[in-house]
């Protein structure tokens, strides 16, 4: 298990395209729903509890699929991934679609998944990358990245839950010119929630029954609405 891999996956410096996505906060700011650190904390809490929870479950499940089949971390050159892995990852990708009915959010997720695939393939070479579709959901790609980098399913869940908060936090800081230290304090104080959400999602992904229907599916119609309003705008800084 590599702790450094987890840090790298959650690092906003990883060039996977996340910096251009606000996770809905740009539209929430336009709609007057997020105006200050307090309303930002509320927004982030919703996001971690819904999109973050869903992503964490999918990422943990994807990581486990790869880990079970070929083992994580550096794999012998030329090692192949059994076809069942591609099928299992495709199933998870379909589960991600079912949990993301908003076309704007789907597109944002797949765009970031493709970005992560691009950097992950070169940073952590692993045969499992070839088992992903060309534009996977971000959470599924994140699970594969975690496996390829030698992290565990629980780490994949933690990274997914953390990113669901850190992306919009940074975007809000830029858009509202908030004190970056205030925003850092908000995200620090939300970290117990992030841990809790990630832990629950990882447990669901590892459950004794293991059914895909047991992965978290928390929806947020408000985020769906914001995402659809946002994508129809021409005057925006962020891709989502």
């Amino acid at each position, binding site marked *: 298990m590599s702790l450094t891999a987890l840090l790298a996956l959650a690092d906003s410096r990883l*060039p996977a395209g996340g910096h*251009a996505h606000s996770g809905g906060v740009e539209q929430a700011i336009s709609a007057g729903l997020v105006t200050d650190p307090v309303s930002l904390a509320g927004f982030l809490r919703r996001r971690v509890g819904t999109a973050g929870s869903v992503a964490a479950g999918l990422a943990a499940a994807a990581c486990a699929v790869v880990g079970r089949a070929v083992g994580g971390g550096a794999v012998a050159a030329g090692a192949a991934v059994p076809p069942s892995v591609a099928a299992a990852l495709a199933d998870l990708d379909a589960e991600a679609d079912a949990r993301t009915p908003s076309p704007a959010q789907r597109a944002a997720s797949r765009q970031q998944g493709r970005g992560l695939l691009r*950097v992950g393939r070169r940073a952590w070479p692993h045969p499992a990358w070839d088992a992903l579709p060309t534009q996977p959901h971000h959470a599924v790609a994140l699970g594969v990245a975690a496996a390829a980098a030698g992290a565990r399913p629980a780490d994949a869940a933690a990274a997914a839950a953390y990113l669901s908060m850190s992306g919009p936090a940074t975007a809000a800081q*830029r858009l509202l010119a908030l004190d970056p230290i205030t925003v850092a304090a908000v995200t620090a104080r939300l970290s117990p929630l992030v841990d809790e959400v990630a832990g629950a999602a990882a447990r669901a992904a590892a459950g004794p029954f293991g059914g895909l229907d047991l992965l978290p599916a928390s929806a947020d119609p408000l985020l769906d609405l914001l995402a659809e309003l946002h994508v129809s705008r021409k005057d925006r800084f962020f*891709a989502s």
Partner: protein
Amino acid sequence: MPPDHDLDDYVDPYDPGQRRAPDGGPGALRVGIGGPVGSGKTALVAALCRTLGEELDLVVVTNDIYTTEDADFLRRNAVLPDDRIEAVQTGCCPHTAIRDDITANLDAVELLEARHPGVQLVLVESGGDNLTASFSYGLVDVQVFVVDVAGGDKVPRKGGPGVTSADLLVVNKTDLAPFVGADLDVMRRDSDAVRGEKPTLLISLREDPAATDVAAWVRAQVRSRALQSA
């Protein structure tokens, strides 16, 4: 000390300059066009599209700060058909999108290249930024930095990565020099001093809407990539 061959293991072997198009050929030359707000980047891109559009198969990626205005300008002026222009959002950070996390731009470039097999030239226009902004060579093969005379004749002397290291420096709006008290000779001299062998072109898009000299430079770069890769 003997060379440490193990260090190679840390480096991923991918070389963006050696990339191949799906057809196995060298693929398109990717040219970054950067520079401060208002220096004439979009006008230069439009001029290049008009001048080179007939002879080269070309596409454009725009990086507006806030809107799709640059892309719309190119569409409105019918410089290029819609399906040859892609706009990317830069998340309030135009320089991040061309330098630190080039994902969205690579996506747009690859999308256009896939949509137009055989494309020879990709122009990536950055969002207007400051003098420190430059393109990552993971995104472009060569880059042009556009400043203008109205910004003051001290700009080349002040330098910055854009001015000193761009493959081509373009000083636009020379027609304004008499009105803003800028000395073109000083700009030329200072540019040469900080840029060494790298070329600088002083142009006026108003007087030469075809951007003849810049187009000639780009043409030569396209040819050179095709020859190198052949």
